């Protein structure tokens, strides 16, 4: 059986195991809730991750370029970028898929799959790099918001009202003695 067909057949099982592995990165009490609460508004983290992983796996099966999967990956990384994870922990869940796929194949020994498997794993690697790009974008956005929020609200209002006078060009430099 060819690899893609096998993975497609096992998709549900693989995505389930991948989801559970990601949930294991949370505290056990938290994971219980994130796994069981089915309402997407009561449980945005669990649902976003579950649906995201499924769509991302589908993208891998279709051989979609990693950049194309970026929009699917973004909501997951955006959440994990503000949670209690190091950068590697926030993005490293992508690699968990490799083990799950290898385990799946182990149970179904079949020759001639090494080359397709390596190609599939290359796609996972590319996805992980994309995940890191998104993680950095999210963090940069956070830092940008940190520095800009005061300026964007209060400073802007004062400036609009003409209550802030900036140094105009051609004014004397008061530091020159």
């Amino acid at each position: 059986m060819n690899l893609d067909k096998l993975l497609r057949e096992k998709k549900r099982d693989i995505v389930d195991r991948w989801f559970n592995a990601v949930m294991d990165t949370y505290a056990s009490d938290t994971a219980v809730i994130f796994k069981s609460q089915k309402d997407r508004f009561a449980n945005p983290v669990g649902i976003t991750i579950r649906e995201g992983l499924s769509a991302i796996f589908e993208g891998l099966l279709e051989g979609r370029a990693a950049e194309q999967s970026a929009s699917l990956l973004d909501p997951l990384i955006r959440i994990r970028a503000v949670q209690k994870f190091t950068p590697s922990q926030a993005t490293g869940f992508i690699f968990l898929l490799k083990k799950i796929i290898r385990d799946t194949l182990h149970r179904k020994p079949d020759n001639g799959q090494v080359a397709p498997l390596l190609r599939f794993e290359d796609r996972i690697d590319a996805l992980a790099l994309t995940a890191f790009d998104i993680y950095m974008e999210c963090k940069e956005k956070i830092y940008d918001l940190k520095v800009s929020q005061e300026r964007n609200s209060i400073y802007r209002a004062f400036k609009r009202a003409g209550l802030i006078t900036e140094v105009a060009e051609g004014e004397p430099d008061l530091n020159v003695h």
Partner: protein
Amino acid sequence: MADETPKPEELIAKINHRPAFEDWMQVPVEIRKGMYCYASNPKSVEYVGLPNPRQWNPLDEDWKLPENWKEILFEGFRERLEKFRTFKVFMDICVRCGACADKCHFFIGTGDPKNMPVLRAELLRSVYRHDFTKAGRILGKIAGARPMTFEVLKEWWYYLFQCTECRRCSVFCPYGIDTAEITIMGRELLNLLGLNIDWIATPVANCYRTGNHLGIQPHAFVDMIDFFCDDIEEITGIRPEPQFNKKGADILFITPSGDVFADPGTYTCMGYLMLFHYLKEKYGFDITWSTYASEGGNFGFFTSHEMMKRLNSKMYMEAKRLGVKWILGGECGHMWRVINQYMDTMNGPADFLEEPVSPITGTRFENARSTKMVHIAEFTADLIKHGKLELDPSRNDNLRVTFHDSCNPSRGMGLLEEPRYVIKKVCNHFYEMPANTIREQTFCCGSGAGLNAGEDMELRMAGGLPRANAVKYVHEKHGVNMLACICAIDRAALPTSMQYWVPEVDVTGVHELVGNALILPGETERTTDLRGEDLPGMEEEADE
């Protein structure tokens, strides 16, 4: 050949939390950057006479506590258990059913078990059991008790400032335990040791000194409002002439200073000015602003009952000084919770004022009989209901609006229908977010109760996720591009949250929408909205 390549599961180290309900006490607190606010400025602490003013850093090992800090906390705890019956009851009756566990936006967003409301309350309860119950004293950990230590104190500080006192958890508690009240008490106790955050302490000091959080002095307050009048004149050809500190005016208007000094609240402020001008022209409405009671918000609420009372009293003292009949309050969050739930027994009843009656419609605002303060959403809804406002909702046709129930007006005073009624009358495109994210079940903006700082941005974004997730849903389903709210903290916090989670959506106050739709007597044809953006259908004219 040995396989030296690390296995994927080795690459990602598992976070080894322990089960929250069994061993949570063993999980050491780690004060993480991005999750906490800077410690309070000692000058601000000193100005209002709070204890232990000094420079300190939460990341330092030495928090510069008074030597007898344990004794101070114990006495403070004892005093509050005697003074506040609710506190005592809330310490005793929780059965840890878990109904609240997954209802907190900070838990949902961070996934940290100590943000489950039950566990946040256990931080205090464990010490309560140890210090004030026989079972706890004798059985210790078996009875869920533990002594106060520096580690426990750090945990208190870290997690009590990861609660926005929004009270969503209390909606789901079968016993009606109000975890916000527990946070309030916990913060009071921390204040006894000088453990506050600067985003609360400095606004408190400013408000006490100049009357508003930013420390803006009366002349600058007038300058800002003058500037809004310039803008309104430019847009409509009509210049409102607001009154300041007018003795003998019928009504005193008080709004959070965020409406006067911070975008996008400033546009809401323009909406108020236009409404008051309209009512003055049409019906002789007599309302005054005050440059002294220039703040509706009350960060004393996040400090101690005494400080809340002190800051609240200035509003009523100003009403008394000016000799008005009653007070109209702007779009604010916790101001309304303080008014609706605490004012009456702190500074009330305000007998020197009259029971509020709308001078235009004759409606008697019976719910405000004792506090004498009416919410502007209710006031405006009443005007519209009686056909007193001429409106052109098509001027908001570029907006597809949803409404975020601000925690305090919704859960704290039951103001659910009035803002919706107003929005539907001034906008043609309104879409509700899912039922379990609005009204009494509304999700907090993630930055209330003094947490709207810059340095705790990760916390704010995580806490803002559940709200933003519902906004994202209506954005994708209905093309919603504007999030309306009736709280100044929301207007300051939600734009940031939207930029991270749903950048296509902007934030507005309800009275900005009113200002856009309101047809002022004698106005020229408008080409832009209050933000100076082209009105629908006016894009070409603006280009010419």
